[in-house]
Each structure stands twice: as structure tokens, then as C-alpha cells.
């Protein structure tokens, strides 16, 4: 295969995964959340249990009018959804499904993924500021405060795993994984999961989009496709964080029959994690802003540092 064709195939594959997996998670959220609340969820679109609901939603969004508020900062307002969406696409390309199955095999892919997700927040900030709406601005500022606070424990937790594996490459990390890590890296895994949910601004950490206080936070003024892009970014974020959790803490493609079907294991583990993320949304109430910061700085950061020390001591002791 010539390099050009290979690049094309990889790009198309990553793009397809980027468009399909979030829809899958979204539909799972529709159905799981509905059943957890004693409802059925969408039942009509597509015939069988409403499987095409999100496709129909997409068509609906595409038909809607694209409104830019008169007082808004037009270029920034229009650019924000792309800034929010593209980093997740880049990050998803670097997450391996199995040793040979990765969109772009970067040597320091763990750092690449973290760096890309850190850029995604700019989209929210731009959207919130450019909307010329006080709720949007408040939502953006809450999002900024929240994401800055939770970035630190997230990076520390990932650093611990990288330390344990002795590599910054996600492929090598999952390669070095052994079931013993489940216990050894448990505090780090907990920190990562909580911080990831907070990074995604999902309930119980959805202060920035708290509908009863801020309408829809930074996305209040958005309509049509641009709004759909933000939604897609949220679900792509769930996919990304779940796959990352699977690769970092659950061994990725390791499992029975992992020879050829390793990628299936990664997807399956990632799916389980995303169901957990959905479950948290259904089961728990939203945190207050001060509780949010307290949890990050007094709970997660010390725990992540503790995990880092534990990992370091163990690595040095066994070296």
C-alpha cells in the first residue's frame, strides 16, 4: 500500500469511527437512561426500538436555521464549534484499539491525547464569550474553572500509569498492563474516571451547562448544525475518555482470544466504561460549584499524588 493511500484509509477510518461511535454511545444513553428511569426511550425512528433516532436528530439539526445573534462576535462564534470538535478527532486518532490498529501511532500518544483534550476547552470558552449572553459567559467561566481544576488530577493519573509502564505510548502502556494493575492503579483509575467525567462536563459535574441556572451554558445561543457539533464533541469525548480508560487501566485488547479480536476487547471495555458514565448521570445529582472545586483540590489531587508516589516506590523497588 502506498503511503498516500494508507494515509487516506486511516483518515477515513478514524473519521468513520468518530462519526459512528458517538452515535452508538448517544443511542445507548437514550435507551439505558430511559430504562433506568422506568421509560422506554425513543421507539419509532428506524423501526426497531428507535435505533435511528440520532440519525433523525442529525437530519433535524441540518434543517434548522443557523442563527448568529446580532450582538455576537461573528467569526469567533462561528469558529467555536470546530475548535471544540477537532481536538477530539485528533485525540481519537491516537488511541489504539489493538497494537496494529491505531489511526496515527505517535510515540508520545498519551501526552498527545491529553494535549488535544486540553485544547477542546477553548471551543467552550470562545462559544461562551462570543455569544454576547450573560448565561453563556457564566457557563464558559464555570467551564474554564472546572476544566483547569480537573486537568491536573487527570494528567497526574495518566502520569502514574506512564510511570508504571515506563512509556508515554498508549500502545506500550496497554502492552505492559497486567491484571495486578487493577489493584495497584485503582486510586489512579478512580481519579482518572472522575476527572474525565468532569472534563466532559457530564453530570454530576455539569455545572457549566446547568439548565436550571444557565439555560445551556456556553451553548445557549447555538442552533442547527453548530449546536450538533457541540453535542457530537460531548459524545466523542465520552468515547475518547472511555477508550482511554480501557487502554490505560483495563488492559485494552488483553483478554481471551485476543489474537485477532483484540480490538473488540478494547471496544467492549470502552463501551462498559461509557455505560458507567451514563449511569453516573442518571443516578447522581449535580454538584455545587464550591463542592466541585473542593473535590478536585482536596480529594483528587492528593489522591493522584499518592498514587504517583505509590507507583514510583513500586517501580523503583522492583527495578
Amino acid at each position, binding site marked *: 500500500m502506498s503511503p498516500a493511500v494508507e494515509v487516506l484509509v486511516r483518515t477515513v477510518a478514524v473519521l468513520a469511527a468518530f462519526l459512528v461511535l458517538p452515535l452508538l454511545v448517544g443511542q445507548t444513553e437514550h435507551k439505558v437512561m430511559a430504562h433506568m428511569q422506568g421509560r422506554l426511550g425513543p421507539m419509532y425512528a428506524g423501526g426497531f426500538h428507535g435505533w435511528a433516532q440520532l440519525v433523525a436528530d442529525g437530519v433535524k439539526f441540518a434543517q434548522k436555521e443557523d442563527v448568529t445573534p446580532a450582538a455576537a462576535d461573528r467569526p469567533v462564534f462561528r469558529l467555536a464549534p470546530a475548535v471544540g470538535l477537532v481536538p477530539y478527532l485528533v485525540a481519537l486518532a491516537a488511541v489504539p484499539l489493538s497494537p496494529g490498529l491505531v489511526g496515527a501511532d505517535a510515540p508520545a500518544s498519551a501526552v498527545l491525547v491529553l494535549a488535544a483534550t486540553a*485544547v477542546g476547552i477553548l471551543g467552550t470558552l470562545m462559544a461562551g*464569550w462570543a455569544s454576547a449572553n450573560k448565561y453563556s459567559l457564566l457557563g464558559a467561566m464555570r467551564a474554564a474553572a472546572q476544566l483547569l481544576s480537573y*486537568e491536573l488530577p487527570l494528567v497526574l493519573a495518566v502520569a502514574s500509569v506512564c510511570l508504571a509502564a515506563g512509556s508515554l505510548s498508549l500502545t506500550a502502556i496497554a502492552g505492559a498492563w497486567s491484571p495486578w494493575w487493577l489493584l495497584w492503579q485503582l486510586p489512579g483509575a478512580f481519579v482518572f474516571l472522575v476527572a474525565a467525567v468532569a472534563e466532559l462536563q457530564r453530570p454530576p459535574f455539569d455545572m457549566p451547562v446547568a439548565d436550571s441556572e444557565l439555560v445551556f451554558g456556553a451553548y445557549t445561543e447555538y442552533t442547527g448544525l453548530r449546536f450538533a457539533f457541540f453535542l457530537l464533541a460531548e459524545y466523542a469525548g465520552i468515547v475518547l475518555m472511555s477508550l482511554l480508560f480501557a487502554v490505560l487501566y483495563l488492559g485494552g485488547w488483553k483478554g481471551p482470544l485476543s489474537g485477532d479480536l483484540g480490538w473488540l476487547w478494547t471496544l467492549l471495555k470502552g463501551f462498559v466504561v461509557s455505560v458507567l458514565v451514563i449511569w453516573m448521570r442518571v443516578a447522581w445529582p449535580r454538584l455545587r460549584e464550591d463542592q466541585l472545586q473542593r473535590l478536585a483540590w482536596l480529594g483528587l489531587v492528593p489522591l493522584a499524588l499518592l498514587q504517583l508516589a505509590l507507583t514510583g516506590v513500586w517501580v523503583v523497588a522492583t527495578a
Partner: protein
Amino acid sequence: MTGLDVAFAAAGTVAAASAVLSVTTRHVVHAALWLVVSLGAVAGCYLVLGAEFVALVQVLIYVGAVVVLVLFALMLTRAPIGPNEEVSASPLHRALAAVLAAGVTALLAAVLVPLARVVGAVRRGGPGTTGLGEQLFGTWVWPFEALSVLLLAALVAALAVAGMARGRGAGEP
């Protein structure tokens, strides 16, 4: 001119142009956004130079944290939409600043560009991520530790400054 030269020229042009825009724009928040573009393009330059890890850290820390903090501060200190003449000094002041800035650029370029031949050319032969780690925790381990103390001190200082203001605010009738 090699292919890499062209790539660096492209990224460098973007970085330089957006840097100039970020210090000349009259929109407060646009300045920070142009800074994002500039820093991102600088990260691209690092990538072209073969320093992936430094590029990633640049994006992670600079774009992900520093600029977000700057934007946060801009929004907290009133950042209206639209051009605002108040953000820059008087025209005379600006002209003087421009002369000085041009002087700095000319001086640096005059010193550095002849040096370029002396130093050689980039062969993307940097230490690599592994080498970087070895250097960081070998030769440079004490400065590294000192930096971590600096970070801690900065954190405490920021908290103290914020707390000081709050204490005073509470004291006011």
C-alpha cells in the same frame, strides 16, 4: 531549501503573523485567541524541528492552561465584544513602542542570522523524548526540583494574593 524548510517557513509565518495580530488587535479577547494561534503554530515549528515532546508540552501547558487562564482573567476583568480603543496606549506611545519593537527585532535578527551559519543546521538530531527524560532527571535534576518548589510557591502565592484581597474585602463595611 528543503521540504522541512518550507514546512517551518509556513508554521513560522503563521506564528509570527498571529503574534503581531495578537499585540495589535483592538478586540481584547481576540488578542488571547491570536495568542493561541501563535502558540499552536510555534508548537508546529517544534514538531518540524523534531521536538515532539516539547511541542506536546507546549500545547498542553500553554494552550491548555496558560491561555485558558488568560482568557478566564480577561472575562473576569470585563471583556466587551467589539473593538475597544482603551486597550492600547496613545498613538504617540504606540509609535514609540513600534520603533522600539522594530529595533529589538532588527538587533536580534542582526545578531542571530549571521550566527546561523556558525551553529549549523537542524538535523532533527535532538535528544529525543528518552534522551530528554534522561537529561531532565540526570544533569538537570536539581533545577528541576527547584522548579517544582517554584511551582508550589507560585500556587501558594496566588492563593495568598487572592486570600489577601478577600480578607480586605470582608473587612470593608
